[in-house]
């Protein structure tokens, strides 16, 4: 006899089977959408795979899209675990780009390793400071950080615009020929290019490699340090954390700062790894900060999983842009991404229930359910 009951504990096999099943369902649903509009699903998936991974230059391009997502994904994975809802990754990334570009331009003559290090610091610090605003407001005034971090995204975007399009700022190129026609930022000197790691025909961006290291460090922080322990307790049961004498306020600010620093590094990577110039329009259109939230959610807020998911989403985005044309509408990218997300999120629903084979024994009851308090 098969029965379905609500359960507190998800059995091991279900924990793995569920995301896999969700992805399978997503593939089927997306296939239906494709077929309904005259595309061959299997052929399309084949094309996507090739354009993301196997055709010439595909892998490198995939990682170009994946790198910023890795940083913004880590930013959110850290914060959301502690139930600090930092949705300001977008703005923190912008500020990181501003910071890194500024440092890169100012310290142009420095030896490369030092220059790159300083750019990373510049980006991280800018992102940190930007994130500390909502962090401090939440910690000390209990202001809702969802609302404040969101607002600051707009402000950061406007600031970027101002620096490049509406002022004679340090970041703006006021001399070169093209700049006289249309406003653009100053390009950084080649010394500020972050060195990609060449592996055969594939180039791994320096930023991504740094991101992997950070992901590992983050995991270690969460699992093995006192700081991470306190974070996990606070995220699980704020009442237990207070009971144990943990100081919530400082922790919130610190976590927000770290989270913002990660997003800021993502911005620095945009400057150092890829564009080498502050490009407000491009950054705003890409929406890396918001996509990072989705990446983190798919990765179940696990830093190492974020690495994987950022590659997957990056692959899909890359394929979309690479294949874009009359036979392959760019709209497929978002649609498929959305279907994947909905399927995985919806799959959580099923994860709360347990399929039991045979007679249903009494499940372990939590203490507070045991007694009927009269």
């Amino acid at each position, binding site marked *: 006899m098969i029965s379905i009951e609500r359960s507190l504990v998800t059995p091991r096999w279900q924990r793995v089977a569920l995301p896999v099943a969700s992805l399978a369902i997503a593939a089927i649903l997306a296939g239906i959408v494709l077929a309904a509009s005259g595309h061959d699903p299997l052929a399309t998936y084949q094309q996507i795979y090739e354009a993301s991974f196997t055709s010439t230059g595909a892998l490198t391009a995939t990682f170009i899209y994946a790198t910023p997502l890795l940083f913004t994904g880590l930013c959110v994975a850290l914060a959301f675990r502690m139930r600090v809802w930092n949705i300001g990754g977008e703005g923190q990334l912008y500020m990181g780009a501003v910071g890194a570009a500024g440092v890169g331009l100012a310290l142009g003559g420095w030896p490369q390793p030092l220059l790159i290090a300083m750019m990373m610091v510049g980006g991280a610090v800018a992102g940190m400071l930007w994130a500390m605003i909502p962090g401090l*407001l939440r910690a000390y005034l209990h202001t809702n950080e969802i609302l404040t971090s969101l607002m600051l995204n*707009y402000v950061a975007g406007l600031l970027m*615009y101002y620096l490049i399009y509406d002022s004679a700022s340090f970041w703006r190129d006021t001399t070169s020929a093209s700049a006289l026609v249309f406003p653009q930022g100053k390009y950084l000197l080649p010394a500020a290019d972050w060195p990609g790691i060449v592996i055969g025909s594939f180039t791994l961006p320096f930023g991504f490699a740094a991101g992997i290291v950070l992901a590992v460090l983050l995991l270690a922080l969460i699992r093995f340090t006192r700081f991470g322990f306190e974070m996990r307790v606070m995220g699980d049961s704020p009442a237990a954390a207070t009971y144990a004498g943990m100081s919530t306020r400082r922790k919130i600010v610190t976590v927000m700062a770290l989270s913002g620093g990660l997003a800021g590094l993502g911005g620095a990577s945009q400057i150092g790894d890829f564009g080498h110039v502050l490009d407000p329009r491009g950054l705003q259109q890409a929406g890396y900060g918001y996509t990072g939230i989705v990446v983190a959610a798919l990765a179940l807020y696990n830093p190492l999983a974020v690495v994987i998911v950022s590659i997957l989403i990056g692959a899909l985005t890359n394929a979309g842009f690479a294949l874009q044309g009359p036979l392959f509408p760019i*709209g497929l990218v978002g649609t498929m*991404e959305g279907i994947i997300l909905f399927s995985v*999120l919806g799959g959580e629903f099923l994860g709360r229930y347990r399929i039991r084979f045979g007679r249903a024994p009494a499940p372990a009851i939590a203490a507070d359910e045991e007694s009927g308090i009269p």
Partner: protein
Amino acid sequence: MSSDLAVSIAVSAIAYGTPLVLAGLGELLAERSGVLNLGVEGMMLMGAVTAFFASQMLPGPGWAVLILALAAAAAAGAAMALIHAFLSITVRVNQIVSGLALTIFAGTIGLSSYAGQVWGIGGQHGLHQLSRLDVLGLSDVPVVGPILFNQDAMVYLSWGLVALVSYYLYRTRFGLYLRAVGESPRSADAMGINVSAYRYVHTVLGGALAGIGGAYFTLAIAPIWTDGLTAGAGWIAIALVIFAFWRPDLLLVGAYLFGALSSLGFTLQANGVQLPSELFSSLPYVMTVVVLAAASTTLARRRIGTPAALGVPYVREEG
């Protein structure tokens, strides 16, 4: 500042603000019920593309086609919102993630773009557009004329809706129940109000209004469809709701203010005042942060009125 200048700022502010008012009202209703929907941009785009397609395809007299196109836009937005509603209310996933998923799904490189491709409307010139009306023949009255009496139907619709939503919220039973659901779902539940139903209805309604707001782009602002046409209007609408502290009257004022501020910046520069327009544009957001911070003390919070249960899934404890 000459009155001509003031008038032109006002008129452009209204053009800028109308889709914001429509989508903002929708988001306001959803958030008042406790559901944060970050998918507004996606819903607006779906409304825009659907309205354009409908207006290209449907036969009949212009006004009928436009009405049907708006209805189609509303339906598209509502359908999108239903997905978010299901995930947020029934499955109880994190509302931030679910709303963003919707924006990605329906957004600039998502379903709205896909639909545009499949329907083949890219590059077409819109057949039907809303035109400015001449209400009571008063559009020539100096200053007020162009502002109040020379707008298109959707502008008047938006004003009507602001009044309607205000009345609904503060003077009807259901609006009262809605406010209770957003403030204290447990109390509302105890009083026999179906919290889930209220959340579903208002989230879907929010989607419908966002769809209509998006339709304004393709039916009034410019007779074309391109990917990502709304250019972030959905995000601004979300900010607007917070800026307006969930009040319809402030929403209307705010929408026009946002528009006026951005054009004010340029205008001042043209007149020699060297203040960056971005400064003006950023004022509302900065102000919102300041007021949110000041309003966070428990006492003030009750006066200002962030729906206390915003973003928090409601689980009824079994007895």
